[in-house]
């Protein structure tokens, strides 16, 4: 029975895929349908968690399912970086699952079956991405993720939603084509055997001219940058906020966009490798784009009055922290980038949960309408404050930890400008989050005078993720060992220099 355990990455995916089918099949019985989501998310979490000790111990589960195309198997492999992404997705799916049920029911949304099914399929794709062992497998799940998100974006079925759905597809399908070309081309360059993701990369200047590699790098990055919300190809992300808030929470803060930054890390560290990237001189341009995105997105966030829109731009900015961390190519920056995948996920999902609870419970969307709302929803707004301060990088919250490592990474390269960028970004974060919190707690309004907290199905998960965020800052190894994984990734990518 040993092989059953060895095949765990497959079982994780099977669970989510079966959940999708089961949800579709029980569309007429909402309680059964929601039960599938909860059961699948918990089973999946247990399966992922059960692999943690082995991965920490340095073991790698590798399953080759079938041959996709000559030279490319469908490979599932659990390396530390993939485990970070898988853990984040699985843990937060449980929280989101419960929250979503509260949210969708209190708003009496339509098309819930398609919604839950697509949601499960998105998680399937996200975990598939996390476990992808080679670029083609990655691409397959990447495109499944694109398609599975589409029904969630157009969930409202209004003209506007459909239009945004088109925009979403235009952006992501185009990106997919760049990625496809990059994957195919790199496959032709590498002489023998299927190119698998490997620390240090499989492409190097011994196979191709620097020019070819540069073009390939740009293609790869364009492919993943759209989902990572890198400017100037970020426009779909704020637009996609038209989706129900749980979607924004899990997908546009965790699964989809993290698939993008995860892809950037994979490309930089596991397709090219740090040496090759610095050899072809693409590290600095990538870092510059990321730095620009960090600042520009924060400035735009300042001007947004719609809470979800502000959070969306905040996401655009925060995602580029990870991209910057990958582009700096130093040990500390790598640690910071990997940590920030987890940290940002927990904090941002807290914020989105809060925004969703405020909207679903009190029907407030605009920041200017939120004066005194802390009186009505103290738990929600308290959690919001935790997430906001965390993102701004106030110690000991987790945002500070990742920022510290990123700044140290910038120090290692000697490019002090990136330290300035990080500090400026922190200030801007405070600037766009603080008014919300100040208004909520210290202004008075006749609208919100009595205690009127969101139902437990929503406030429970909110409290849980907020507490998790705090814990993550103080002891990043207490749940899923993100800290250990980050160090393992750092050691692997820097050739043992971590």
């Amino acid at each position: 029975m040993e092989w059953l355990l060895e095949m765990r990455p497959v079982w994780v995916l099977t669970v989510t895929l079966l959940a999708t089918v089961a949800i579709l099949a029980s569309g007429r019985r909402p309680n059964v349908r929601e039960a599938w989501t909860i059961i699948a998310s918990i089973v999946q979490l247990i399966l992922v968690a059960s692999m943690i000790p082995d991965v920490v111990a340095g073991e790698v589960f590798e399953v080759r399912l079938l041959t996709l195309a000559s030279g490319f198997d469908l490979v599932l492999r659990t390396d530390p970086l993939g485990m970070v992404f898988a853990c984040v997705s699985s843990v937060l799916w449980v929280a989101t699952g419960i929250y979503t049920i509260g949210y969708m029911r209190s708003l009496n949304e339509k098309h819930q079956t398609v919604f839950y099914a697509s949601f499960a399929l998105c998680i399937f794709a996200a975990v598939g991405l996390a476990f992808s062992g080679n670029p083609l497998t990655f691409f397959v799940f990447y495109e499944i993720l694109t398609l599975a998100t589409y029904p969630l974006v157009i969930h409202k079925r209004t003209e506007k939603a459909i239009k945004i759905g088109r925009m979403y597809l235009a952006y992501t399908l185009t990106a997919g084509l760049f990625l496809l070309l990059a994957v195919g081309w790199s496959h032709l360059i590498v002489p023998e055997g299927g190119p698998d993701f490997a620390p240090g990369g499989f492409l190097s200047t011994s196979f191709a001219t620097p020019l070819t590699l540069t073009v390939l790098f740009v293609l790869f990055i364009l492919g993943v940058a759209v989902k990572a919300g890198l400017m100037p190809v970020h426009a779909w992300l704020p637009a996609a906020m038209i989706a129900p808030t749980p979607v924004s929470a899990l997908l546009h803060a965790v699964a989809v966009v993290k698939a993008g930054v995860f892809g950037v890390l994979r490309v930089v560290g596991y397709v090219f490798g740090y040496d090759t990237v610095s050899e072809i001189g693409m590290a600095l341009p990538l870092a510059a784009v990321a730095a620009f995105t960090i600042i520009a997105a924060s400035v735009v966030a300042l001007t947004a009055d719609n809470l979800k829109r502000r959070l969306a731009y905040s996401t655009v900015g925060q995602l580029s922290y990870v991209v910057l961390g990958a582009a700096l190519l130093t040990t500390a920056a790598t640690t910071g980038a990997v940590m920030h995948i987890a940290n940002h996920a927990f904090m941002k999902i807290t914020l989105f949960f809060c925004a969703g609870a405020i909207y679903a419970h009190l029907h407030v969307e605009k920041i200017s309408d939120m004066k005194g709302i802390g009186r009505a929803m103290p738990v929600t707004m308290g959690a919001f404050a935790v997430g906001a301060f965390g993102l701004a990088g106030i110690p000991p919250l987790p945002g500070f930890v990742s920022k510290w490592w990123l700044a140290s990474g910038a120090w290692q390269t000697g490019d002090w400008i990136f330290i300035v960028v990080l500090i400026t970004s922190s200030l801007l974060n405070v600037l766009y989050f603080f008014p919300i919190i100040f208004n909520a707690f210290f202004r008075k309004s006749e609208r919100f005078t009595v205690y009127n907290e969101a139902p437990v199905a929503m406030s429970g998960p909110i409290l849980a993720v907020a507490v998790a965020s705090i814990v993550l800052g103080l002891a990043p190894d207490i749940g899923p060992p993100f800290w250990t994984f980050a160090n393992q990734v750092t050691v692997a990518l820097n050739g043992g220099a971590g």
Partner: protein
Amino acid sequence: MTTSNSLAWIIAVPFFAAAVLPMVRRLGKAWVLPTALIGSGAALIFALYAAAIVVGSGEPVRHELGGWEPPWGIELRMDHLSAVMTVLIASLSFLVLVFGRGGMEKRLEGRSHFYYSMYMLFTVGLFGMVLTHDLFNLYVFLEVSSLAGYSLIAVGERASPFAAFRYLILGTLGALLFLLGLGYLYAITGTLNFIDVAERLAPLGDSRAALVALALMLTGFGIKAALFPLHAWLPDSYAYASNLTVAFMAAVGTKVGAYGIFRVLFTIYETGNLQFHMPVVQIMGILAAIAILAGSILAMAQSDLKRMLAYSSVSQIGYVLLGFSMLNANGIMGGVLHIVNHAFMKCCLFLVVGAMMAQVGHRDIRRLSGMGRKMPWVMAAFSLAAISMIGLPPTAGFFSKWYLILGAVDAGSWIFVAVILVSSLLNAAYFFRVLERVYLKREDPAEAALETAVATTSATPVSGSSALAVQPEEALEVREEEAPRPWLGPGTLPATMLAPIGITAISLLALGLGSAWLVENVLRFIVPGGL
């Protein structure tokens, strides 16, 4: 190399069925379809048997007709490419027949045996074309399939005989060009057997006559394959012919033209020669690239679902020929793989259109709102096929695109890479336009009223006035087309219609995940030596 009589049976059995169908009709209506099914099913079994030998042994299977050894007699030879084509034709012919149960009988009221007889002859022609290894015999089977094809197209809506006539003119021209080309070849080589011709052609190298023959034959097959700009016959034929015909013809009809091009390029004019004849192949590549883009753009402009799919076929045949024109292993494998994949996708899509028209009686994209609720399973198959057409993994369409892109990168032709990528986006644009309608748009009450009007009008086509009152621009179209009446009430699709749709849809996933097997065990052997 093994010899097997099964090759002759593949052709003979449906031919026999075609011949006896009018006689069988005397026994009663109930005998017609089973006879056709037996003919087609037996051919499928023989095809599978022969293909299994080919794949198992890795060598072609041959048969000398009447015991006359080549190059004097006619040789049937099933190599890996023929095996793929034969199995493809046989399986889709059978599936489409199953789908058509009842529908054709209802439409033709007691004369469906002629239709099925022609259907069998069409299949025979296609089998013959992909199995024969003799140039003149190829021409004969080309005409058999074409003549049967014209008559099949003529069975359909009011405009279909006209479309069939147009196809007849162009198709005959194509066949004649091929005949002329093979005449040249016969004149300079004195033989007709593929391999014999190829051997004698090699030393002739740069002969002007050989070059002219190549151009003539490629143009001839180009018309049959509807290679842009020789595609003019296709949209009308596909739009007006009956869905049964189109589901089969769109799937394999044009593909056999592409098969002919492959044979001419890679079997008769061997690769060594092609280097000299490069301009011809390059021109084909450019035309294919234009076809891909033009077909997709024209498809976007259509409001008739069948016509949209027809233009999409023009674009997709471009993929196949583009792959051939790359002259490298990946490109050629991608092209052949796309023949298979596209056959299943298009068959599935046209079967869905058939099922839809059987229920709601129209095929206007603008009136598809709410279909996702009315026919969830059928529309799910449609979506899957659409995703495959766009070329997203893990469906079949992705994998042919993958090899085509590899081929284009290998060949260093970045324009072709760009064409393939842009075309995926165009495909997405026109398929999502339909999917949005089907799933997202709410049903317009006025439209619903019109639909009930159509459904309840028993004998006459939809009256122009009522349609005019609702939506003026659509009225013309409906009147001209003799709106096909729905012959099944809502929610009453028989299993014989659903099963073929389901099988083709599932095979899109199976073909996708099994494409590596197909490539390693079959398609690798198709790539001509030296590439």
